[in-house]
């Protein structure tokens, strides 16, 4: 596919964007990374994602694909000869889709409330967040990755959020590792892979970004 034109419209700190970067890295796909200014959205972003006007957007040979997990599935289906993200058995595939959907429904929303809310609302979010991580630990079991011996769809959906854990812990004043050591061990194991370490951002930089966001939204 030497003539493929692949561009990723993204924001460096976005865990959703990191999912796509990781997916492209796993498949060894060369692409152009285009950092977006979400305060001043560019014409290309508005043209490629008119419905949501959000990143990430993958533009493949001029055609856009939006929504991070939909993009990840698209990447898996187009570059299908290498590193499959989903198992071949339909039941296992359904389980992978279920748990990736679970990450979408729980981890981002609870995480966001941890850094945006205070008092009781923040406490409730911390509890929901930890409960969700514990369910994920249960699903991981003894496997090295959710995908088994190799990184798969659920790993790609989840592990970018690790870069936001330091921000959640510092702002929420709690230790995720104390409550979910197995999950943190898993995240660190993933980071040993080059595709993961080069696709994920530095948690300290992410924290600085969240501090900036909180100032901007007037949260203190």
């Amino acid at each position, binding site marked *: 596919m030497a003539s493929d034109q692949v561009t990723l419209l993204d924001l460096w700190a976005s865990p959703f964007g990191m999912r796509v970067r990781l997916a492209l890295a796993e498949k060894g796909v060369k692409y152009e990374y285009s950092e977006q200014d979400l305060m001043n959205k560019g014409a290309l972003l508005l043209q490629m994602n008119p419905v949501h006007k959000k990143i990430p957007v993958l533009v493949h040979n001029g055609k856009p694909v939006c929504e991070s997990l939909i993009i990840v*599935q*698209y990447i898996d289906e187009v570059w299908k000869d290498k590193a499959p993200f989903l198992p071949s058995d339909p039941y296992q595939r*359904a389980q992978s889709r*279920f748990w990736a*959907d679970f990450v979408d429904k729980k981890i981002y929303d609870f995480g966001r409330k941890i850094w945006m809310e205070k008092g009781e609302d923040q406490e409730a979010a911390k509890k929901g967040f930890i409960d969700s991580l514990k369910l994920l630990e249960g699903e991981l079991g003894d496997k090295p990755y959710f995908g088994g011996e190799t990184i798969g769809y659920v790993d790609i959906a989840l592990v970018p959020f690790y870069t936001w854990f330091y921000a959640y812990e510092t702002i929420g004043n709690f230790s995720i590792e104390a409550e979910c050591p197995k999950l943190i061990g898993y995240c660190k194991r993933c980071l040993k892979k080059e595709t993961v370490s080069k696709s994920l951002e530095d948690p300290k930089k992410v924290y600085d970004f969240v501090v900036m966001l909180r100032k901007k939204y007037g949260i203190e």
Partner: protein
Amino acid sequence: MAKSDVKLIGAWASPFVMRPRIALNIKSVEYEFLEEILGSKSQLLLESNPVHKKIPVLIHGGKPICESLVIVEYIDEVWSPGPAILPSDPHDRALARFWAAYLDEKWFPAMRNIVTAKDEEARKALMDQVGEGLVLLEGAFSKCSKGKGFFGGDQIGYLDIAFGSFLGWLRALEKMNGVKLMDETKTPGLLKWADSFSSHPAVKDVFPETEKLVEFAKVLAKFKATLPK
């Protein structure tokens, strides 16, 4: 495959439950429908979907699959000699999944909240949102159908199922509020599609009657009023 091998836990009025039912019908798969009662969750449901405790749940050979669109993809993959539900081209698949996600995350929550809107102004704002969404979906229909009768082309597919399962409630809402949200001027393609969809052989037996949903909406409102805040 014996009928008892495939069970679906659901409820007649749920648009999410309708989705796997249509998918199973497309594949001509017989199944046992286990109806949940409003207000209580069966032991089987709690055991099969401990994470969300919600319907629908497909139980195939004793193994549960949860989340309506995950179930639809599963059905498409398992019963694969059989009319395809998802398109074959990866970009078309991504587009179908995109619009299904839009429906579930943006459009349907707005529609559902119309019933519990706190005042007339809030209700109008939500109805406008639903109406604007329908105009977007009219555009999606033009693009996906490529001149044919369904989002899936000649045959109903993933997006027809994802969107069509909300039509019963859309019609009930139109009736309860005395409005037309889908009309000939703004959404002519969708209006025609809605008729074709609701009368399709794989759909018509599981498509809820508008009157029954209007009655059920009253029952549901009473039930919700009894729940702790």
